[in-house]
């Protein structure tokens, strides 16, 4: 299956060079994607799947939009 993945802020350097579409085995989780991208899981502070906060073990589905963020703040 394919999902869309977007890495932001200090995680931007892990964004796949081929773009945002990412191939993943059926039933794969956020954790699987994070490891496949070479990101240390502890560097991911906020995870959005389709705009909803999600845990690292969230199973992904075809067409999901995944956003990965380190700790960020502002205001």
């Amino acid at each position, binding site marked *: 299956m394919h999902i869309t993945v*977007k890495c*932001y*802020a*200090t995680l*931007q350097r892990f964004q796949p060079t081929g773009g945002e579409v990412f191939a993943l085995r059926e039933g794969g989780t956020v954790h699987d994607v994070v490891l496949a991208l070479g990101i240390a899981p502890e560097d991911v*502070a*906020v995870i*959005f799947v*389709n*705009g*909803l*906060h999600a845990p690292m073990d969230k199973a992904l589905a075809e067409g999901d939009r995944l*956003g990965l*963020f*380190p*700790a*960020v*703040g*502002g*205001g």
Partner: protein
Amino acid sequence: MAKFIRIDMGSRTAEIGACPEKYAGLAGRGLTSMFIADEVKPTCHPLGKYNKLVFAPGFLTGTSAVNSGRISCGAKSPLTGGIKESNSGGSFSQKMARLDIKAMVFEGLPADGKYAVVKVDKDGVTFDEAPAEIMGAGNYDAIRVLQDKYGPKVGVALIGPAGEMKLTAANISFADPEGNIRSAGRGGLGAVMGSKGIKAVVIDDAGASAVPIAKPEEFKSAAKRFANALTTHPVTGQGLPKYGTNVLVNILNEAGGLPTENFRRGRNEWANNIGGETMAATIEERGGKTTHGCHAGCVIRCSQHYVDKQGKYITSGFEYETIWALGADAAIDDLDAIAYADREFDEAGIDSIETSVAVAVAMDAGVIPWGDAKAALDLIKQIRQGTPLGRILGSGAAAVGQMYGLTRVPVVKNQAIPAYDPRAVKGVGLTYATTPMGADHTAGYAVATNILRVGGFVDPLGKEGQVELSRNLQIATAAVDSTGMCLFIAFAILDIPDGFNALVDMINARYDLSLTGDDVTALGKTILKAELDFNRRAGFTSAHDRLPEFFEEPCPPHNTVWDFTDEEIDSVLAF
């Protein structure tokens, strides 16, 4: 002995006295709000003889504590009609503290309608006619002229053309250590300063001694622990210095809470073009500064120098809320264009949040096309020109909405709602509704807990836990705003308990006190109660604590609505 300075702009005289007993234990927002609540007639016209403008540094300002150089400005707001505390960086506050000035109060109205420069130094207060060349001029030139005349190191607080016109979105600008501009942006306090005939206040701390510390060793040790919390927390130690506050564009867009086209949806396709990552890369590529502090001693350094393609400075303090409002809410997909607009806001001396939201409302009204950067900049430049349309824009989002007959006007208590859709970040929606300041994200930044997962987690799309969250943050913020600390320290101390303890320890060591965390909470409550009481006496009721009805419409992509009951909203500040 701490000084309390009353400056009468009618007679151009100053009375320098000892700080009254009732204000001795206060500082920053606590002092400005208690003072306004005590001395300003709540029903007064904000630009009339009964209003007063007060400046106060925080408890720790002027010390070696990092990030402690903020200034609080207070008055009755001409924008909201309620009490206002607006705070800013710059070098003014630290100079006040070193001169041992607890507060500076400006009262009365000028007898002759002329503008003065008020000069404050160790010998007292003097008054000069404002130089003709700075009247109507942009703030950057005005600061240069004032620092040429009074000394390159003097602190400067000034109003721009917007304040001279007494527009309700006019701000008070403060020179930063490099002579660039920081602002006490919200609530139109520049109009109050203008009404009193004050073009600028300059402060020279030459000859002042160091701020006294009751227990220097304890202070030093606590200050070190506090700095350590800020530099080790990933938000204050890494994210903010690298990307600035504008790092929030992409995360709010992912969360579906980035208001786009006058709050019609919470996500757009171009967000990354205007986000902090793109901004930092652009600044680096052009040889600008990606990081610098708004006051000496800042270790977070979230500000930056945004430069043009030739590497020439355009603006600094280029914040998420301004970039959101023009870049997403007004759909201007062009960081350079937004930077020129931000520069023009600083030149005119007008709140960049209020006015940018007003631009989006003007687009919604069909005054200029959506996303038209050139038309937007032309419109913004009309503020300085003083055209009728420029004056309407400079009077804020509600004024524009009223002039053009719109109902889709994102304001609470007449103040523009910033950068986080209350339907997708519900905790901050409660803050917008209930803070005595009018819609203000900084008054209780539930975004931290709803979106950023700092200080715990409360689901942004649900109602559960939001009332308590907004209440607790509003109480804590009122206290932090009294310390002189930058509010961003909260990211670190919400997660690192020793950082909070160190903050309290520093205050205790500075003044030889024995405050506890509970005392800090009690202080926050006392301040909020005084502010709410002022607003009640000014005519505010719970009916004013409501969001505009268009927030009943679903907000894509989550299609959530604003669904708190009146009782739930009214319980936020019922303590």
